């Protein structure tokens, strides 16, 4: 046996491996580049402007004389517009609550009982195309002289008492965001093996016990993700309070932002409200993504 040198491959230093890894990384980066550029240009670049504008006085950002720097807008946000933020959170919270109460049973029926669930899902997605249509539709139905008038007359209730009210705003918001809840909860439910429910039933568990002890823990992530998503979407609510709300509901930050920015051209204050809403939306989106990932994995 002649002593031939052994050429055993040493992990991590095989010839050409490092080059291939580098090329793969560069290819990956090149494929991502268009998305990164588009995001930076059309998403983050405008955001930089918005933040910058929020530190300028009124409409001076666009004035020929140049912007006047100020912290007043954030002061006004703290001293004057916190109630508006409160109303926004209140409406979003109530809409989330309504969606939770009706969305979980609906998702259960959809996943477990409905045979043609794709058709049902397709119909459900419709509201997501426009909160404005929903609000206009509801206003048309509820306005005096509208289709619901005979019903109001039957119970001797003035149309406007229902139309311009907190419940009508929350109801319209809930309809718009309902699919977010059902889809998240539905996805989580699909991952739960139905035999677990059958086993629980065989062992004598009542339906509510099965729900509380089996389904709720196993779909928790989907429920939380759905709730956060509904809440996040509802923070920017605009059309429903405008068309259906009383003066109190019309205080939502998105509507106030519109009034300040578009009607009164106070871009500084409007963008400050936008920054606050964006910060809120970011936090909610972060948690919703975190939990929805959990829903899919679990």
């Amino acid at each position, binding site marked *: 046996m002649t002593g031939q040198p052994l050429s055993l491959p040493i992990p991590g230093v095989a010839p050409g491996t490092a080059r291939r890894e580098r090329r793969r990384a560069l290819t990956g980066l090149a494929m991502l580049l268009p998305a990164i550029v588009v995001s*930076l240009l059309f998403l*983050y*670049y405008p955001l*930089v*402007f918005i933040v*910058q504008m929020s530190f300028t006085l*009124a*409409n001076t*950002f*666009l*004035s*020929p*004389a*140049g*912007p006047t720097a100020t912290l007043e807008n954030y002061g006004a946000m703290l001293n*004057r*517009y916190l109630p*508006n933020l409160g109303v926004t959170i209140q409406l979003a919270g109530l809409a989330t609550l309504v969606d939770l109460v009706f969305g979980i049973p609906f998702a259960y029926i959809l996943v477990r009982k409905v045979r043609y669930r794709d058709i049902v899902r397709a119909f459900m997605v419709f509201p997501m195309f426009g909160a404005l249509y929903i609000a206009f539709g509801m*206003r048309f139905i509820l*306005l*005096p*002289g509208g289709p619901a008038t005979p019903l109001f007359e039957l119970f001797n209730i*003035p*149309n*406007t008492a229902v139309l*311009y009210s907190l419940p009508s705003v929350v109801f319209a918001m809930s309809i718009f965001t309902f699919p977010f809840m059902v889809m998240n909860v539905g996805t989580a439910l699909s991952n739960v093996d139905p035999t677990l429910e059958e086993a629980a039933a065989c062992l004598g568990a009542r339906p509510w016990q099965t729900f509380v002890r089996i389904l709720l823990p196993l779909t928790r992530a989907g429920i939380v993700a759905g709730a956060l998503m509904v809440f996040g979407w509802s923070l920017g609510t605009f059309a429903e309070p405008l068309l259906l709300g*009383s*003066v*109190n509901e*019309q*205080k939502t930050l998105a*509507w*106030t932002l519109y*009034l*300040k*920015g*578009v*009607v*009164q*051209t*106070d*871009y500084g204050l409007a963008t400050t409200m936008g920054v606050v809403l964006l910060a809120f939306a970011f936090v909610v989106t972060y948690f919703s993504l975190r939990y929805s990932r959990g829903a899919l994995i679990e």
Partner: protein
Amino acid sequence: MIQRMNGKSGSRFGALLAATAMVFAACAGLGASPTPSAGAAPQCGPANAAAGTKHVCIVNKNMTDDEIKSAVAKEGNLVVANWTYTANDELVKQFKAYVKTTYGADIQFTYEGSQAPSVYLTKLYAAQKGGNPSPYDVMAIEENYWSEAMSNNAVDSYLPSDLVPNQKLVLDTFQHVPTSIGFQSTAFPAVVYEGSKAPFLKSLKDLANPALKGKITLPVSGDITAGGFLLGLAAEMGKDYKDPAQMKEVVDWMAANIAPNVLKYTSDSSEMQQLLRSGAAYAVTFWNSLARLEYFSGKNNDAKLLLPSAIYPVNGYLWIPRGAPHPVLAQIFINWRLGPDVQFPNKWPIDHGPWSELSEGFLGPDYVSQVPDWFTKDYFSYFPTLDQIKTQFKTVDWDAYNKGVKQWMDYYAQKTGQG
């Protein structure tokens, strides 16, 4: 292992993001720096064109008819910013036909309509700030916006111009030579009410009557509808709208006495019409044109227009923004819009309601004969006479208004719970 890798790429990504953010912040800083002003607009002196030519101030040229036709064909496009009229499509059709007949050119004509004209100003300022051409050729919006745009150096001079001969038909009261001219004479925020249900309404202060509890609408805070309403109320109360402190007193009185009667704060005319017709509201605050629309709708014969003792008109004015890309067509449009047959579009195939939206009073004596036969009997129930226009309508100092309005409008929003 996975966590470590994520951490590593995360830190790289963080560094990349931070660097990018700094670059973009720097770029944004550059973008936000004030652009050098474009120099003063040329002042238009009296038209002094050579024989056979027309003096076109805004381009500072004497042009022959052929040159004008050539310029129209070359421009070939016009964008007008106005309100949302029911007859917008007809307006576009009529003007395109007019250009075709008079100048032999087919043009693209975009007629933008918005009930919040401040949107136009935002777009205009942003374009001018970025050194871009104006997105609009003609602004046809309320006088206060012209005043604001003037203070932002955003308006071009175009009067007098041989392309706008109809200027001479318009009373001096409705002209701001060289930059704008009124195309309305009697537009004002007003109260429209049900005559049988609120017969006691004789002044704006009467909106405080307890019989109107939950039965009135007021304008949403912020825009000129609310501003005009408060100007009228201030006049009734003997307060000076130029003094923000006095306007605050007006708002305080309104909040204490009228606000409790409010059913809804809205500037949506279709909602107001439905509330009025159904009896859910007895009085709505909008523009005086709503009374005519109700009259012509045939659905509400009881709607009346409240004429306050002092009327501050907030008329629409025609002006050309600095950097408008189609200045010749812009002037042709302005002249056309001021023509008696367009101010009173009696020959257009439109109903009486849309007609009454487009026609907003006499701009001068040459228009008086244009009142159509079908409206002769009731015209002066909805429009003032030329004498009334000259004597009873007050003029607004828009500079003073714009200086104080933010303060007291904000107060109005606060006191009425609108934010």
